[in-house]
């Protein structure tokens, strides 16, 4: 039986009666609820976005071993400085992201550092999925379909931050791994299993765009993607003497550039 919505009063009462509790991830161990600035579970095939202050910690968790977090980072209010995956792998002399790795901008500065990673299965080469490819693989890739493409969702997240298609460079993804074989082929290694997480520290004020969708090389013919838990809390940027900062000459110079820039900006 359909609800009574034949008058404005009935429609208002009906709408107000719809509210239901939302399950949110708990603050990570050691994080007080007062410091928490973001707690959200992103279902498979959906997206989220947030602007984070410099120093914030952003934790992505894959409770079922079936999430794939596609991430783009732009400097907040200055989005032409953004994630550059080529500089990220080239400057660090490594194609694979893991603990201690930096996500670099195109301006020789750090956007985020990976402070913790219990998965080790990530990808900085293959980007995200597209409408055309999802149509071919799953029959559809539009946002309203049962198999939304990563680029379609990142476009929506970008639009809500005043950004458009020209603001979407190749993204990175977490929790489903790809490795480069001898000869240059790409090998799917997939998940490290349920219950892994990765924590990023924002080294500049960041606009964070996140889509949780199957990795474009996922061999599963069905569109399957598990929930992604997102939490963030207040913190401070990586300081002098931190092992992440001092790890290599490249990381030391990247943080020096970032500090100098942020000091001049007053952030």
């Amino acid at each position: 039986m359909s609800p009574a919505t034949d008058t404005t009063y009935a429609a208002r009462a009906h709408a107000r009666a719809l509210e239901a509790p939302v399950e949110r991830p708990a603050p990570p161990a050691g994080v007080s609820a007062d410091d928490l600035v973001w707690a959200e579970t992103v279902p498979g095939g959906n997206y989220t976005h947030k602007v984070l202050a410099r120093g914030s910690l952003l934790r992505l968790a894959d409770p079922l071993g079936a999430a794939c977090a596609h991430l783009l980072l732009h400097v907040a209010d200055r989005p032409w400085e953004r994630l550059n995956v080529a500089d990220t792998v080239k400057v660090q002399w490594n194609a694979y992201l893991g603990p201690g790795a930096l996500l670099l901008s195109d301006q020789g500065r750090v956007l985020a550092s990976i402070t913790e990673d219990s998965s080790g299965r990530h990808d900085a080469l293959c980007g995200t999925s597209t409408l055309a490819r999802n149509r071919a693989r799953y029959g559809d890739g539009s946002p309203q379909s049962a198999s939304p493409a990563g680029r379609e969702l990142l476009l929506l997240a970008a639009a809500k931050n005043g950004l458009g298609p020209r603001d979407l460079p190749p993204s990175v993804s977490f929790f489903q791994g790809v490795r480069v074989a001898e000869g240059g082929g790409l090998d799917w290694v997939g998940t490290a299993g349920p219950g892994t997480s990765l924590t990023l520290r924002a080294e500049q004020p960041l606009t964070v765009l996140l889509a949780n969708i199957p990795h474009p090389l996922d061999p599963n013919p069905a569109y399957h993607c598990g929930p992604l838990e997102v939490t963030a809390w207040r913190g401070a940027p990586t300081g002098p003497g931190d092992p992440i900062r001092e790890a290599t000459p490249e990381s030391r110079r990247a943080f020096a550039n970032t500090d100098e820039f942020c000091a001049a900006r007053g952030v």
Partner: protein
Amino acid sequence: MTTETIVPARAAWSAVIPAGGTLTITDLHGNQAVDFLVYDAADTAVRYSAADTLQAQGGIFLTTGGVLMSNEHTPLMTVTADEVGRHDTVGGACSKESNTLRYGHHTWPQHACVENFLAEGARWGLGKRDLVSNVNWYMNVPVESDGTLGIVDGLSAPGLSLSLRAEREVLVLVSNCPQVNNPCNGFDPTPVLMTITGPET
């Protein structure tokens, strides 16, 4: 109709290639990295995507048969001939800024590919938001089993060429790489030859 242009060492170049036309790039002096971006001439928001190119071919190296895919996962250009064997999709362009990380702040005054891309792109109304991870023709970037990657000595030689067929009308932006801190240009940037051949009629 055929047009030939020599791009001087360290310089930028651009051209519109008609659908069905072919661009042949000749490494005149050997081991000269040619940084390369390509856009749909009718809508430059549709542009080369390294990620989609890798997805489509299942590997990181480009050679004959490889298709340069757009960010909408549609073909922009196809490699129809290649005398070298493999080219880079991972390393991106050098910049004054990334040079400070890779080689030290004393290298900041040196010219770099991003400068070329920005200057040449501006002639077509393109700006910084339009620069994405590019192809590096003639550049050799292997990846080890532990993920270590780097620009190593090239596989090219004087006179070797590759050809690209435009799958639609495309705008091509090129930086003839000026980098002198790694072997991508044999530590000596040199001119390259661009040959545009019209579509067969």
